[in-house]
């Protein structure tokens, strides 16, 4: 199971906090998540976001990109939160998996373990 570590960024910068790229014939499933806000400057709401562009369908040949929030959790300043597979059950992204926060914080680290499930 691969994992990626990113610092908390705002939604506008979420492209810089990509956890897993889209794989066309698979979905990205979150397996674990650790939010290290021990040295962070404030409480943060951390969101797992799914980003993809739908396929063409009847009446719409070029759909716009979609950004859908799949999971949201608050990390209190000074805390470290660890979520396992059971806590993240059902959290899957059809496209790329990103994370963002309600506030940018270079001292709040988010680690997400994931699998591309075929």
């Amino acid at each position, binding site marked *: 199971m691969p994992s990626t570590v990113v610092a908390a960024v705002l939604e506008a910068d979420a492209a810089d906090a990509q956890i897993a790229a889209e794989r066309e014939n698979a*979905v990205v499933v979150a397996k674990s998540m650790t939010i290290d806000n021990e040295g962070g400057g404030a409480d943060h709401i951390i969101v797992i976001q799914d980003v*993809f*562009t*739908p*396929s063409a369908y009847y009446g719409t040949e070029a759909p716009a990109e979609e950004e859908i929030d799949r999971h949201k959790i608050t990390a209190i300043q000074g805390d470290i939160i660890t979520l396992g597979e059971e806590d993240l059950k059902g959290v899957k992204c059809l496209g790329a998996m990103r994370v963002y926060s309600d506030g940018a914080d270079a001292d709040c680290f988010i680690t997400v373990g994931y699998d591309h499930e*075929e």
Partner: protein
Amino acid sequence: MLELQPKPQFSVVVPPKLLQEGYLVHFDSDWPSTHDAIREKTFRIDVVNQVPYDLPYILPTGAAGTIYRDVDFSNGSGTFQESIYPTKQNSLFEVLVGFKPGNFLTHWFIPAGKSVHALEYAQMYPDLTDTKRQYLGARQPKDSPYDDPRIKMYLVKDLAPLIMRLYVLPGVLFEKIVVGLTINKCLLREIEAPTEDQLLKAKVIRYYDYLRW
């Protein structure tokens, strides 16, 4: 204790899912004259080559039957054409179709607009805008799983477009639909004068109209 396993009295042989080299195929007289090159003819398969191909789509939920995607397996550069058909007269493509799990269903048409699974009473044809008839003739992922596909298509050059309509059922905003194809490319060699025995052994490939009598 010493045990002697008895010799089995019979064994079960599971036939291969796909056509193999040396197999015989026969195209019956139902094929129209536009397919004269194969109509009422018998062929031996000289070479096979299996080509796997995943077709992925992300689609929004169906919105009362108004949102769907037509997958046209015929050749061309249209947005919905997948160009799976053979272009050579001596090719037969046997295609297995399986689906990864998901919240969607499929309807099948050949040619476009003519359902394969209509019943006989008036209006008893698949209709995505109708809450009941959207399930009429619908094939769901469990009917043909990705790892054990049960939908099979036989494609020849210039066959009418075969359309698979994908429709995401309510309950999710979007769904990722992965259609797994195994395209068994078969090179055909005509048997000019097949024997009675060869005709009996040959797999009969019928024209699609036989499904709608």
